[in-house]
């Protein structure tokens, strides 16, 4: 009789432990799934972009060693942008990341070109003609519409913090003295 009375609680404890382990496993995978979905949503959910009617914009940029002036430009998506590049010292170039747009201005001369700002985001423009030691870092910035990547990045940063805290709870670290 004694062995029987002993076995019963063992079996129920075993199945309880198994249940708990399964629950924990489901919980962990649930969190992983939730974070993966959140990550994808943050990175790829289409966000509404305020629509402004396209306008013509003429922007005069002075290039000198080793700066563009103004160094930051802001236009709306869809704008027709005309750049007037004026070089005040040596030959300078203007090459816009993400757009196939390039200009080259001789000293004292103006080079002009037009493009449609059809891609939104922040794009660097760089001097494309070697003009001195800091030439590789002669950089400016064109903002087309709102910087959605920055907004997504901020959300991603917050998700990273939450994921870090939850991950330590879900996957306790053996090294840690404090995490239970």
């Amino acid at each position: 009789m004694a062995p029987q009375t002993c076995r019963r609680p063992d079996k129920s404890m075993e199945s309880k432990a198994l249940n708990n382990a399964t629950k924990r496993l489901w919980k962990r995978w649930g969190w992983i799934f939730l974070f993966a979905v959140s990550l994808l949503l943050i990175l790829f959910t289409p966000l509404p972009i305020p629509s402004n009617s396209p306008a013509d914009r003429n922007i005069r940029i002075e290039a000198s060693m080793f700066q563009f002036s103004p160094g930051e430009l802001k236009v709306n998506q869809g704008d027709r942008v005309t750049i007037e590049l004026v070089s005040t010292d040596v030959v300078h170039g203007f090459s816009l990341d993400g757009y196939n747009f390039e200009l080259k201005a001789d000293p004292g001369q103006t080079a002009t070109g037009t493009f449609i700002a059809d891609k939104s985001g922040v794009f660097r423009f760089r001097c494309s003609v070697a003009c001195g030691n800091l030439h590789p870092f002669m950089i400016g910035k064109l903002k087309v519409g709102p910087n959605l990547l920055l907004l997504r990045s901020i959300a991603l940063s917050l998700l990273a913090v939450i994921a870090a805290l939850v991950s330590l709870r879900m996957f306790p670290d053996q090294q840690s003295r404090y995490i239970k």
Partner: protein
Amino acid sequence: MTRLDLTHISWTQTLLRSRWPQFLLRAITLAGFVFTIFAGLFGSVVGSHNFAIIFVWIAWWTALKLFFIPFGGRSWCSICPIPMPGEWLQNGGILQPCGKGIGLGKRWPKAMRGSWLQAGGFLMVGLFGAVTLTSPLVTAIVLMVILLLALILSLVFERRSFCNYLCPIGGFTGLYAQVGPVEVRVKDADICAAHDEKVCYDACPWGLYPLALKSSANCGLCMECLRVCPTDNIAVNLRPWGSDLGSKTKHNLDEAFLGLVMLASALVDSAIFLGPWGQLKSAAYAIGSLPWLLFAGVFIVVALGILPGLYIAAVWASMRLGAIKTTLRQSLAQFSQLLVPLGMMAWIAFTISFAFAKFSYVLPVISDPLGWGWNLIGMSGTSWVGQSTSFSLLLQVVLLAVGLFWASRVARRITESVKQALPLIAFSIIFSLSMLWLLIG
């Protein structure tokens, strides 16, 4: 935790035990170093056409941050050519120690130990970076001075004193090697404890005793301990990233200072080299001028005032929220661990931002290393402007998010509660968002 001991694999053990592979690699890097100095002195004055600038500041500096440290910890130190000539004199031999070498063998002054001077050196690199990173002549002079300094110091002081206490790159790699996936440790502590002759300590150029190794920050992976151990008791482990960080590891105040200088340098370098502020670039370049003095002042205020101020405030708040009583000094040192993943991922993101755009300079400069119009491999004149692609921007975002995730985990692991970790996490968020704004804003 899981470890893979490379000395248990016969071919890796042979490679690590033999001095020849390492010697050959160091001979190549020394030859490259000497050629870099030659190119800087006699090659084109245009940085983008000179081997010295492109190989040191684009190829090597990128490789160090994207390959050597993340996948090998201080592996670069094991093949660095800078201490070689001094070490030959100290050892009295080229391949291995032979008899009595030359040198006074003095101990490094106690007051100057730690990574304080390395952090100061890194600040100097930042202050003069716009010129050093773009002028071949200045790069050559800096490399010559470093080589000479390392040689002179090795004749006066014992072992690798220059690497241990002065080299700014040694400070950089040492700090981030703590999260690297390689470590040298003893296999069985009892065997070492029973062994009276500490041949491993005598052989170590870094002055370390393997039995006491708890962190990989100061181990240059030279493998001398492995070679001289009579009981084959040294392990070279591949380990999970971040193994030196946690509540049980010991950290010093100089690490906090070094970590903060690295964070400040990442911010300032991003602003100078990737930002659209032409006046800032000109100021950083015009050394000695009033604008440069202003720039230097702002840099020093950020590196030694604002960032440390924010960190001290976060640590102080965290201490107030904890139950265990410690001093501010102890907490500043212990919590400095979160600066390691935060800084390493920020430096990797910064490197990605310009490496993708500037890597096109590497092959042309191999073709014409001195900018003299040569075309050795038919690649001269093939460099293009380069640009940040949307993939590179996304990669930077992900890297910074990983840095914040990692730092938050470390913050939580070294504190008693989520509540206590929050100020440290807030500090990490402020830094990460600042980097994000500079890189993709």
